[in-house]
């Protein structure tokens, strides 16, 4: 096999989801999610401190507050064109989770993809 083919193959690996560059991007996204999760839990605790009532904002609640039209449309698309059960109970279960736990968990998993400096 010509050497050029191997070089092309290597370049294509660099653009794949598992190349070090892609992993760094995913890890950065993960760190960003961790930051948002931290902000969310800080907000929840601030509300708790001022009201004495702990209520963690859920991912669904935040989505509703930020852009209810897309939440509504997503539910319709998932339930009508994919499967009703994918939305409820599976996605609803995730959307009911506290925002900090959902984003924090996802963020930690993505941040773990960060390649070590020795590489």
């Amino acid at each position, binding site marked *: 096999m010509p050497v050029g083919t*191997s070089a092309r193959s290597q370049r294509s690996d660099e653009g794949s989801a598992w190349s070090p560059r892609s992993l760094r991007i995913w890890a950065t996204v993960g760190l960003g999610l961790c930051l948002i999760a931290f902000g969310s839990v800080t907000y929840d605790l601030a509300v708790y401190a001022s009201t004495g009532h702990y209520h963690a904002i859920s991912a669904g609640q935040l989505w509703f507050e930020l852009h209810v039209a897309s939440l509504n449309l997503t539910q319709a698309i998932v339930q*009508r064109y994919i499967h009703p059960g994918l939305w*409820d*109970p599976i996605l609803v279960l995730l959307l009911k989770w506290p925002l900090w736990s959902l984003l924090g968990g996802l963020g930690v998993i993505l941040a*773990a993809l960060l390649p070590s400096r020795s590489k």
Partner: protein
Amino acid sequence: MLIKRPRGWELPESAATRETAFIDRRRVLAGLGLGGAILAAPALFDLRRMNGERAAQGGAQENPVGKAFYPAPRSAAYQLDRPLTDEKLTTTYNNFYEFGSHKQIAPAAQALPLKPWAVKIDGLVERPMTLDIDDLFKQLPLEERLYRHRCVEAWSMAVPWTGFPMRAFVALARPMSGAKFVRMESFQNPDVAPGQKQAWYPWPYVEGLTIEEATNELAFLATGIYGRPAPKQNGAPLRLVVPWKYGFKSAKSIVRFTFTDRRPMSFWERIQPAEYGFWANVNPNVPHARWSQATEMPLGTQKRIPTMLYNGYGPFVAHLYPESNDRRFFM
């Protein structure tokens, strides 16, 4: 002399990925898979349980409310320009947001308990009261009416409703002179209505009419359909039918009527006011924010027909909206 030509797949040892690196990656992938399985397990279990319950039900349960009062005499005053929609379609293609955003909600709706069913009347009335649904049957004679129904999603049907004029119900409630609107509230029971588990929505479902609309001769409170008690997915045991408005105005499974001097904020108006307003009168010339309302597809047909202003009920209701050029009345 040995000349070694490296093949395309051969790499120097220094270029090979360290064993620890790909083992770590496998761990991450395994963790993702395991995490996903843990996350989804309760939901999957619930889904299997739900499907099992649906299968066990083997179809819609009968609505026992007021069964002895059917069939009711048909009113000759309301004629259709099209054939009645097949009953199977009308009872299996439903919008009932409390049970989901898809059309096949009939199996899930069977979880709604209909007995006892109390109807509360309060607000600006001479005497607030709570009536059992059976008391309504005893006090208000049933009749059958043939109405066109136009959904905001641009499909339509023609249905024989059984029930009583809302005008008669308003007379029973005896509102005070200051009452300008009727606010209707549907049931709230997240234990049986999965949609209501999405607590970020402003449950319960609320709709409203002006007193003039509620006492218009067309406004109807339906208890039955096709000559018998309505199935749960069609809004049993008591639902509103206002055929000159888009279907979402016709609240289902109503438990409360509040007479008020303030315009109620309806469920959809609270969520997406630019798309689903308070008035929602049918008008083919005022498009929805995302699609045309010029035509509609009757259920059971594959052809589109022109939509009529006020769904063809202009002679009954146009006088309620003297400023007919005001687009607010049609959103």
